[in-house]
């Protein structure tokens, strides 16, 4: 009985990890930049929702949509204003730039809220659903639903529409895409926007579960990495599966081994996967071609 319950909670957690991992993966696939500031975009999404709900008094759903839209714009601006500008430099520059803008975002949250730990009012005031002994909270249902819809929408767009095929084409070969008349810089900007927006959804979903503080994003970054690594770096579906697996693994490890290990499950996953099976579960070769 506990096993099912753990698995279910793990999947709910994992769904958020999956979303974060997918959003990082989108950026990586489209622009080959790994966004080390992504956790702070998740945090920003949560804070914007808080702002709109608590300070502006807007309904949650409207706030959530606005927050996601705003983060899309922010992602786009970051790409166009910061990442694109250092394109000619070494890849170390990208990593540092991502860390830097993440730090700025955190700094802004700190300057405004500093000492406060902000409680988000309860959003989904529904009582838990019972399946026999199994408890499913409204929060979990909302997460499953939101993540499920988003994933269907995303993969539908990516694999079934012509716009999606263009995206895939650019991911395959930038030069080729440019030759057939696709505006690659615009594409990169849009994909950063999409990544930031997806990450913001993660923040929006997490906000009601926890309290908000400026350092919120750090753990999501690591979980996202672990999920991405597990699923195979750069594999979109892999990131989703990796996220779900990580969420479930944390709960199992916590219950059956030791709760002390929950916190490092992600790190151990990263190290084990890269040591034993660098391609992850679904990925292509990791090693740079020599």
């Amino acid at each position, binding site marked *: 009985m506990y096993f099912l319950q*753990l698995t279910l909670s793990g999947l709910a957690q994992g769904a958020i990890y999956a979303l974060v991992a997918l959003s990082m993966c989108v950026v990586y696939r489209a622009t080959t930049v790994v966004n080390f500031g992504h956790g702070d975009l998740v945090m920003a999404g949560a804070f914007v929702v808080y702002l709109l709900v608590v300070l502006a008094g807007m309904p949650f759903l409207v706030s959530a949509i606005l927050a996601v839209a705003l983060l899309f714009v922010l992602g786009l601006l970051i790409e166009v204003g910061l990442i694109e500008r250092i394109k000619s430099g070494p890849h170390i520059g990208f990593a540092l730039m991502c860390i830097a803008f993440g730090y700025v975002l955190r700094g802004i949250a*700190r300057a405004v809220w500093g000492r406060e*730990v902000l*409680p988000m009012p309860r959003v989904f005031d529904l009582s838990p659903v019972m399946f026999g002994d199994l*408890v499913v909270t409204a929060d979990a249902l909302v997460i499953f639903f939101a993540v499920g819809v988003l994933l269907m929408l995303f993969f539908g767009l990516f694999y079934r529409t012509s716009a999606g095929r263009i995206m895939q084409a650019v991911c395959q070969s930038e030069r080729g895409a440019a030759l057939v008349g696709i505006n690659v810089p615009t594409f990169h900007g849009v994909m950063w926007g999409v990544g930031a927006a997806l990450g913001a959804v993660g923040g929006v979903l997490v906000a009601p579960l926890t*309290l908000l503080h400026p350092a919120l994003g750090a753990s999501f970054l690591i979980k996202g990495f672990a999920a991405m690594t597990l699923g195979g770096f750069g594999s979109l579906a892999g990131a989703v599966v990796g996220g779900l697996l990580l969420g479930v693994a944390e709960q199992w*490890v*916590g*219950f059956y081994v030791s709760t002390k290990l*929950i916190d490092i499950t992600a790190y151990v996953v990263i190290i084990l996967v890269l040591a034993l099976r660098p391609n992850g579960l679904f990925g292509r070769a990791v090693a740079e071609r020599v």
Partner: protein
Amino acid sequence: MKQSVHLLRVGIAILACALTTIASAAESTGVTDTTIKIGIMGPFSGNAASYSKAEIGLDAYYKWVNDQGGVNGRKIETVLEDYACDSAKGIAAVKKLIYQDKVFMLHGNSCSAVAMAIKPVVLEAGIPWVIAHAANGAISAPATKNIFHGVPVGKTMGMAMGRFIVTKPGAAKIAVIQHTDDWAKSYCGPAMEFLASKNIRPVVEVSFERGETDATAQTLKIKQANPDFVIACLYESETAIFLKDAKKFGLNAPVMGTAGTDLENTLKRVGDLDTVSNYYVPHMYADNLDGPRLKRFVEILKKYYPNESVTAFSLISMGSAAAVVEALKRSGRDLSREKFIAELDKIKDFDTGVLAGRITWTPADRDGVKEVAVAGFVNGKPAVLKAWGQPL
């Protein structure tokens, strides 16, 4: 070559000079005809910034004292230093206060690990330091010449937590859930020690890290052990998550939290009374945070920091500030560090108005506040409790 040798000689001469320069701090450093400089170090930035509400409350209190006319014709000049709960920054902050800003005394610190790191620096300088917030008893014990504890130490709180737990009839099995950090340990450690002295040992101990958003594994593990009482040394957000999960999975045992949380805010965060009705916290204050006896102190805070929200940390350092002001008054116009330390040691049974316990310092015992109550919900309202089921 010749030049290098010459430079070397100069260098050695300089070195010798520097080594013989011995800094000696004057006894009345930081005191002018009109001011007394007090250094306040707090984690105003970084991941533990929510602690620094204590130092903000402290600063507000001193500002208020000034507006009441100050102390013996002098105004208190506070110097706030941020150390972001980081040892290196903490040492730099304290050294800056002592040697650059030349403050008269130190009043501050929230993070225990940093307090331990700066302790040798403060001892060496011999400057009076009243610990405003950090709970580790080892900072002030064994007693030294110049360090005073202005809040109940972890041991006092842990004992209050433990004492309360054993008043629950039939409480034999306890479970512990805590963060793995020095803050959680300063509560859970002494509480478990006290219970161990009553032959009660935890049936299950689980950890729940800061920043995690789900406590299913922890809650189920605790539920499996079927405890009579749960001790939860968790931060605000994690407390809320744990309480919600406990409700969700039908873990009905009462939960003893820490002074890092309070009943009013926890209720606000969790959202429904049912979930928190079985939550208890050690209570350092003389009243509920929104009670009439604390109203005066909340107003002081709001006067100087109008946008500051009030949490369990906000008023905690005001008690020792009241004691400091009293000792400064008693030291008279002719203020020196030695005199001030002597007066601090004469503070006996001092009612601060804000803390539940009275402050007593002696040269042999600097652990000033030895009483902590426990609070819980009675009929849906926060209330201070004598024992299980007995409101004060």
